[in-house]
């Protein structure tokens, strides 16, 4: 297997005729806490992989975060245009003359392969982690040298939005097939602004500017991601000028570091919302579960002052969302919509009074250190619940598979609002019939009949005004049942050298192309 990787390296090395020319451009070094062990952009779907992927690969469609931090506008990228041929068929027309890092020109075969059943959505696909983005795919076909068609089993008005997700990255079919899945992940090749020259999952990534990049000259001569597990060491490297960007500044150190000369700390809200799910089920492990009572659930939601807790922990870096009402949804977002169960200690007491709760201990499973500040907030909440007479005990678990082991009453989780153009993903995919909330071994609820009916209506309604109303009806049902509680919009923090003009927008995805470096005027 290692031989294949050697072959992969040799193929890539041989493809470079000229060394990078731009001597006056900087060598950017990004110090990261971790990297995903494979750089296949679908097998490596993760925050730690997303730091690298967009610098090596391009997606068919892109979001414009260099001008709008929430990136609500779609930008044609490797796909020049797209149109709906029928309710279930979309056609994408590709950009002509885009070279991969070995000079091979991208065509419809590459795109059809990248989106194929074989790779993403068939039986036992090569990269099984992309299935959530390929829901309903029935056909992907190259219909011309630069056109492909994607057919789905149900009408999807928002299909182009899926092409900004990791499945939209275009891989070179010839190279992938030559080296195989695993070797590709160790020495990937794309059409992106930087060409990878080395990758060691426990050391880092090195890449050089791809001088033939189709979209514009890369602003750096080289780009490295160095794994530096300890934050203080990353920070020392930044202060000493060794690193240009440092990721994952611990939330409690942001203020202290912001005053360091030559260093700017950025806090960015991202499309992920930490929350907890109420376990509403009575199972063998939990025969008498008081949380089957909606009044207790509502008492708990009304009983915690999330605004105060969030402000105390995060300052103004983030906010408490109204369920499924997120700014990244453009026209679906309503800044004035309020929560059905707001903070109200008196209402909480009344809900509790109406419930059958008799002081039983409720266990909250929390994955240690996974969501920044989660444990601190949880302790505040436990105290507020204790004031009401609700007895919650936090149990920290070292990983999710341990957290999923029953019995538990509350389970930590987060909802991604990742781009589908509307609240379809967090609301229906993450709570509906396909969701792990409902299907997995660690399921926490059974959908109500109303939820199913409203959800199907939402799924089938395509016209905007009607779809928005269907979405609001579905949210109202969700809030009526109260199967969980949102805490805040997740935040990522970067510390960067003042010498670097770079802003990733509201995203954990880091891109160092001419649009994101230098204020977008490159």
């Amino acid at each position, binding site marked *: 297997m290692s031989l294949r990787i050697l072959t992969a390296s040799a193929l890539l090395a041989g493809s470079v005729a000229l060394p990078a020319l731009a001597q006056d451009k900087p060598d950017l070094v990004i110090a990261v806490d971790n990297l995903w062990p494979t750089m296949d952009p679908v097998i490596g779907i993760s925050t730690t992989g997303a730091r690298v992927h967009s610098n090596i690969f391009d997606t068919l469609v892109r979001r414009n975060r260099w001008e709008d931090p929430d990136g609500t506008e779609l930008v044609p990228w490797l796909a020049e245009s797209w149109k709906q041929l029928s309710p279930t068929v979309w056609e994408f027309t590709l950009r002509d003359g885009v070279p991969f890092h070995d000079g091979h020109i991208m065509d419809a075969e590459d795109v059809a392969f990248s989106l194929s059943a074989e790779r993403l959505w068939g039986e036992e696909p090569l990269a099984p*982690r992309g299935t959530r983005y390929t829901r309903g795919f029935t056909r992907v076909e190259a219909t011309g040298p630069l056109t492909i068609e994607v057919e789905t089993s149900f009408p999807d008005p928002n299909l182009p939005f899926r092409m900004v997700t990791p499945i939209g990255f275009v891989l070179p079919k010839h190279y992938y097939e030559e080296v195989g899945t*695993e070797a590709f992940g160790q020495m990937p090749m794309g059409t992106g602004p930087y060409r990878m020259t080395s990758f060691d999952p426990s050391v880092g990534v090195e890449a050089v500017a791809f001088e033939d990049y189709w979209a514009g000259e890369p602003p750096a001569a080289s780009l490295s991601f160095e794994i530096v*597990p300890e934050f*203080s*060491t990353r920070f*020392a490297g930044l202060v*000493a000028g060794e690193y240009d960007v440092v990721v994952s500044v611990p939330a409690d150190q942001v203020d202290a570091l912001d005053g360091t000369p030559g260093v700017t700390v950025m806090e960015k809200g991202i499309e992920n919302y930490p929350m907890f799910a109420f376990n509403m089920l009575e199972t063998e492990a939990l025969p008498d579960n008081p949380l089957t009572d909606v009044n207790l659930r509502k008492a708990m939601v009304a009983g915690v002052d999330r605004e105060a807790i969030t402000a105390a922990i995060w300052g103004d870096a983030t906010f408490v969302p109204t369920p499924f009402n997120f700014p990244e949804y453009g026209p679906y977002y309503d800044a004035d919509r309020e929560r059905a169960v707001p903070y109200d200690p008196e209402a909480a007491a009344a809900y509790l009074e109406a419930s059958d709760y008799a002081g039983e201990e409720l266990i909250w499973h929390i994955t240690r250190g996974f969501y920044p500040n989660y444990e601190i907030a949880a302790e505040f909440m436990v105290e507020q619940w204790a004031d009401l007479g609700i007895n919650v005990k936090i149990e920290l678990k070292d990983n*999710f598979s341990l957290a999923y082991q029953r019995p538990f009453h509350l389970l930590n989780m987060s909802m991604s609002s990742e781009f589908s153009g509307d609240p379809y993903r967090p609301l229906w995919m*993450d709570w509906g019939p396909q969701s792990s909330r409902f*299907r997995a071994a660690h399921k926490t609820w059974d959908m109500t009949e109303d939820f199913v009916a409203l959800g199907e209506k939402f799924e089938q309604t395509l016209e905007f005004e009607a779809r928005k109303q269907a979405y609001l009806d579905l949210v109202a049902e969700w809030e009526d049942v109260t199967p969980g509680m949102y805490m805040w919009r997740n935040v990522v923090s970067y510390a960067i050298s003042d010498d670097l003009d770079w802003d990733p927008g509201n995203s954990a995805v880091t891109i160092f192309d001419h649009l994101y470096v230098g204020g977008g005027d490159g």
Partner: protein
Amino acid sequence: MIGYILSRLIRAVATLLITVTLVFLFIRFSGDPAAALVPPDAPQEVIDQYARAMGLDQPIWVQYTGYVGGLLQGDFGFSIHTGLAVEEVFLARLPHTLELGLTALAMAIAIGIPVGAIAAIRRGSALDRFVMAFSVFAFAMPNFLFGLLMILIAALVFGTFLGGDSASVLWPALTLGLAAMGSFARFTRSSVLETINAPYMRAAEARGVPFRLRLIRHAAPNAAIPLVTLIGLSLGALVAGSVVTEQVFAWPGVGQLLVRSVATRDLAQVQFLVLVVAFTMVLANLLVDFLYLLIDPRIRAS
């Protein structure tokens, strides 16, 4: 003597077997390795596909016999993340770890032993007290704290960076070797003190052997016995690298690989690393045991 060697060998093999088994079980029962490969909200089908690919759908005893059978044939398995043979990944890291560990050990020996000897010879002097204070500090100082302090002071005060790719091995080696330096100094001091007052030293003095010669010919070999044990154990720990020091300095060695492999539940990689560490520890212990045969006539006689 053959009995002595045999019993040591049997003990070594048993230790290895127990280690292999415990690691095999612990890593499987401390969280689902297939679930570690996917996001927390991944569908069950995806987790199941990974589990099948990794053979985790097999009964545990089938997995275990397969694993031990593989070991006996020299097949240590592949990393579930990269598909690389685990021993290759290890060998790529090993030079870094040996560079760091050997430098640290050399520093600890070169500084700790002479300083301890001098303290013993100048017993009760200010120098002795200073050396003992230093050795307590060196031994008690947690190395992550010492390393971080060095890194931060160097960056904030001197504007230089002691960690990462391009940094010198001296700083992480000093951090890693500090505790050993302290304990070497203490052991040397007490060991030399013991021998200095031994009857054979007085006898040598009475014979008119000069002081320096008494130290080198008579005191040193006797004082060396406990130090051999100490150095042997440090040597065994070398291959494991230093998890903490490597993390703090972003030193790309075996320790960092181990932390990462455990965090990502990379079964074969963790099993191999623990096996190698156990093997070197056992080997170092065996060497020390056999070295005793050479330097301690009492064991030979028994």
